[in-house]
């Protein structure tokens, strides 16, 4: 049984939460520039590591807010809980974020806002 520290409500039993799967999957904005195979990376293909995994959770029976969790899929140890829209801070979770094949995909590149006429993506 996991004890998950909701950033808004504190330590709660896993029963109160739902897991939303892999974190940091952004919808490609420039989707028309992608091939079907590249779009499949976004739509269907999932990171499924044996080790540190970055995933989204929601406190369904509590505050109903989303947050990210870095968790080990072998020991079930929760390494870090961090807010939506941010990347992890701890070394192990940072390494997992960097190592994910998703960082190299065209779908992820296309998720950044187009930056014509001096607008820069963030």
């Amino acid at each position: 049984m996991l004890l998950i520290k909701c950033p808004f409500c504190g330590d709660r039993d896993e029963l109160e939460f739902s897991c939303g799967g892999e974190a940091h999957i952004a919808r490609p904005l420039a989707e028309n520039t992608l091939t079907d195979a590249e779009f499949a990376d976004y739509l269907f293909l999932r990171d499924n590591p044996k080790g540190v995994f970055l995933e989204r959770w929601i406190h369904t029976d509590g505050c109903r807010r989303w947050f990210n969790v870095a968790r080990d899929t072998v020991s079930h140890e929760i390494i870090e809980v961090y807010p939506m829209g941010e990347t992890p801070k701890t070394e192990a979770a940072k390494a997992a974020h960097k190592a994910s094949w998703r960082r190299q995909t065209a779908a992820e590149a296309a998720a950044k806002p187009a930056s014509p006429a001096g607008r820069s993506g963030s």
Partner: protein
Amino acid sequence: MGYKPDRGARGLPGGKPKYSIFSLARNAGSYHQDWQRAWRAPEPKAEYDAVIIGGGGHGLATAYYMAAVHGMTNIAVLEKGWLGGGNTGRNTTIIRSNYLWDESAAIYEHALKLWEGLAQDLNFNIMFSQRGVLTIAHSEHELREMSRRVHAIKLNGIDSDVLGPEEIKAFVPIINIDQSIRYPVMGGFLQKRGGTARHDAVAWGYARAADDLGVDIIQNCEVTGLRRNGDSIEGVETTRGFIKTPKVGCVVAGHCSVMAAMAGIRLPIASRPLQALVSEPIKPVLDTVIMSNAVHMYISQSDKGEMVLGAGVDKYNSYAQRGSFPTPEHMIAAGVELFPILSRLRMLRHWGGIVDTCPDASPIISRTDVKGLYFNCGWGTGGFKATPGSGHVFADLIAHDRPNKIAAPYSLDRFQTGLLIDEHGAAGVAH
């Protein structure tokens, strides 16, 4: 359907005595001390024509049909632990072919036809028992969805019948059909040809028969890397050295994403724990299999008398082969309501297996972008029933480097074309 699958060479060319009532009697004379080994424990050779990674039911079946049907005998099965120690030995042994779509009917019925002759084919008692599989519905909507599925199943020439609550009560006397409970039994459908088999025996039977045909079964040999030469596979790195081979078939269930990463390819798989438990043995009270999709519970009684119960998948990814408590608790609550007799039973064992769930609840039987590398995975929560059919079509795919008619819809391409085979309704356990 109406076809007979090619079951391959029969008989045991390895010179092992056949298992029969006579061999049993003969060995009783020596207090069963002189039974020959069922399979060898060979050292891995430096090179094979093909290597199968994973010595579970699907992997061993693949090796057996490659040797028996396609004459590929210079092959090896690599298993990191012991044969059938993964999901093959952890499932609840349910066999059925009552799926919604034509593609699923083709492969699961192919498997069921092979099950029906498997004990004879392998000369091994796999204790296949066609005791029927009854799926129950707890709402009007589920009942309508079920009759739609039954019509589709019948159009594919597969047996299935809708039953009302009274008929269910007559078929399964221990069930509670009181309509005032939280999830009342409103109806169900029965596949009489469905049933159970002894899961360990399936692994052992395939292993023994494959070994007879010359297949090297190598246990305690973990694959640590897949060596590529450009776009082709060159061999596998293992804990017992490098093995050169032009063809590698990955049949590793929960670890398929780990294997895929070694080859630099990606899969749409999420690995999740699926839990089951058995009670203390009691006298026979249940001579069929009952499944409920809505409350995520399935139950049968083993030949030893244990009640075998299976739960839903856990909600988060894991490779730990153990699950969380809320999942079986939920299932037991539903089980006790449906079968009040369970309330006084003590549970003896409880375990988890890591299943490879796919977005459309259908398997992947496919070539990959790496020439000579094949994957058979994504069976998720319901792979055991397909063991012979899965091995049969995967052997054909590896031998000929092209999918046959049954395997073709299960290609990885479907996640690009969108031709998904959505079996979330028939998979029995929500993914």
